[in-house]
């Protein structure tokens, strides 16, 4: 049974930065190489599959992030409804995995989502991240996979000064502590 609940049951607000409480959302990893696979995802999710590097596409319910030329990351906007999530996963599994177009893996209990809002979020990230955020911060929907305080993260620029950051469950408490410590110095 997947664990949709986050180990972080906290939210913090500082001057010009807010880490909001993380809702349990569902996340699915999609892998495939051929054109049929890309078309099938778009059809099943009613979303255009992003094929350009470091981009994403969204609709009112879902976000699809480009991770690599043959890998995408799907997550929901809102708190998960287990029944809906299972239906979506089953549909994807039947249309993609079963016919050997690609792989569908539910990673809901693997990644934790932390939402960051505020005008100083990029100063906080730059304190522990080698990535250059100059172009990224003005590109709505931009995605990057990088290191933050030596921890692998996926960052989705959902809106201007509104980020969703994904971190592996086992690193999430440590990263949360680091963020709360680092924010005092910016």
């Amino acid at each position: 049974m997947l664990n949709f609940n986050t180990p972080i049951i906290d939210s913090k607000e500082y001057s010009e930065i807010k880490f909001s409480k993380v809702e349990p959302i569902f996340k699915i990893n999609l892998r495939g190489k051929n054109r049929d696979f890309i078309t099938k995802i778009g059809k099943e999710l009613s979303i255009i599959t992003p094929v350009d590097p470091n981009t994403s596409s969204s609709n009112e319910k879902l976000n699809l992030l480009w991770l690599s030329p043959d890998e995408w990351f799907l997550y929901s906007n809102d708190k998960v409804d287990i029944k809906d999530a299972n239906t979506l996963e089953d549909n994807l599994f039947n249309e993609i995995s079963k016919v050997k177009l690609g792989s569908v893996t539910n990673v809901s209990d693997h990644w934790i989502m932390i939402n960051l809002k505020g005008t100083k979020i990029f100063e906080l990230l730059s304190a522990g991240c080698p990535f250059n955020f100059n172009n990224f911060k003005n590109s709505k929907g931009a995605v990057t996979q990088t290191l933050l305080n030596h921890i692998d993260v996926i960052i989705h620029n959902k809106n201007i000064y509104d980020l969703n950051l994904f971190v592996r469950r086992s690193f999430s408490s440590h990263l949360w502590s680091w963020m709360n410590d680092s924010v005092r110095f910016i």
Partner: protein
Amino acid sequence: MFLINCPYCGERDQSEFSAGGEAHIVRPKQPTELSDDQWAEYLFMRKNIKGVQFERWNHAHGCRKWFNMVRDTSNDKIHAVYKIGEKPPIN
């Protein structure tokens, strides 16, 4: 520290990458017919020259894709980056 232009993600810091050693080493077609020395030569012996070298790199903390790079080991100048399976753009 230097910047590497990943052929998939674009320019990123070196700390996101892992070096994978010498590139374009071809596995022998008939390993059973090789002597121990020839097998060891294929398996372990790698060039480590001062100068331009063909290397494999992995964008370990990004897209996790392997690619090839032509790098001068004496000054870390990157002459070319190209995908696995592609021919080196320079000799």
